């Protein structure tokens, strides 16, 4: 890492959290390149994530993002805010497929809001939308607040 830069460690404090508080918000872009890159990194080579002809044949509206890619990118605003060591639990339901257009890709918007504050941890709920529609349900991250 660069000299003089301050490492983002688990020692920084998250501060007093209040239910309803937005802790992070971000626009994310997925392209066909993102899908190919995720296929390679994860080992999930299901062709519905990169071949239009296969997606079409199985009756899909288009090439879809891997659910695990959507899950993986959606948590990043929370990881940047809290630090990787504080993520205790992360769950989602895959409620709507994310179609990735060959030219335009797909634009995701993530809002991360405090849903619950407990002793030593807090639950952060993610709202992940493409256009007006949410694509993940029950997207919840539990972060440690006692370290």
């Amino acid at each position, binding site marked *: *890492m660069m000299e003089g830069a301050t*490492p*983002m*460690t*688990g*020692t920084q404090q998250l501060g007093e959290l209040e239910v309803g508080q937005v802790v992070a918000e971000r626009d*994310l872009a997925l392209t066909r390149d*993102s899908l190919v*890159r*995720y296929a*390679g*990194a*994860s*080992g*999930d080579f299901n062709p519905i994530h990169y071949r239009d002809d296969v997606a079409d044949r199985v009756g899909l509206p288009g090439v879809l993002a891997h*659910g*695990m*890619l959507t*899950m*993986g*990118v959606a*948590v*990043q605003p929370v*990881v*940047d805010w809290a*630090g*990787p*060591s504080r*993520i*205790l*639990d*992360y*769950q*989602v*339901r*895959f409620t709507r497929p994310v179609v990735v257009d060959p030219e335009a890709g797909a634009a995701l918007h993530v809002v991360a809001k405090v849903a619950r504050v407990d002793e030593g941890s807090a639950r952060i709920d993610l709202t992940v939308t493409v256009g007006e529609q949410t694509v993940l349900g*029950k997207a919840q*991250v539990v972060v440690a607040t006692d370290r």
Partner: protein
Amino acid sequence: MNPEIQGRQYPPTPPYLVGREKVREFARAVQATHPEHLDVDAARAAGHADVVAPPTFPIVIQELTLRQLLEDESAGVDFTRVVHGDQRFTASRPIVAGDELTAQLTVTSVKSLGGNDMVTSASVITDADGEHVVTATSTLVVRAA
């Protein structure tokens, strides 16, 4: 699908050695930007032995166990009709490069709803000392034929 697989446990998977470049590759693929995922010095400054894997990285190891389930003919899960319903990771600590991880899957629930079958499984991922690292839980939905 065979409803009697509820409670079935598969053998632990062979050890998976988490590579530093694999962590970086996965981190870039999920657009992770936190320096502890990419920079060894930043990870060490935060008290980790090496770069830290993103929260969804355990899917790579869990996948080895899901393959056991899908390849088990007696379970009768038709891979071509499987959709990922939900996913959860419950961690004792983050995965870091250098970890040698083993996973063991247990089928925790089999349900049928509106012609679709749903199979929920929990894959417990442990390190070389046998300590719990993370449990990965998925529900796979097998759509009606």
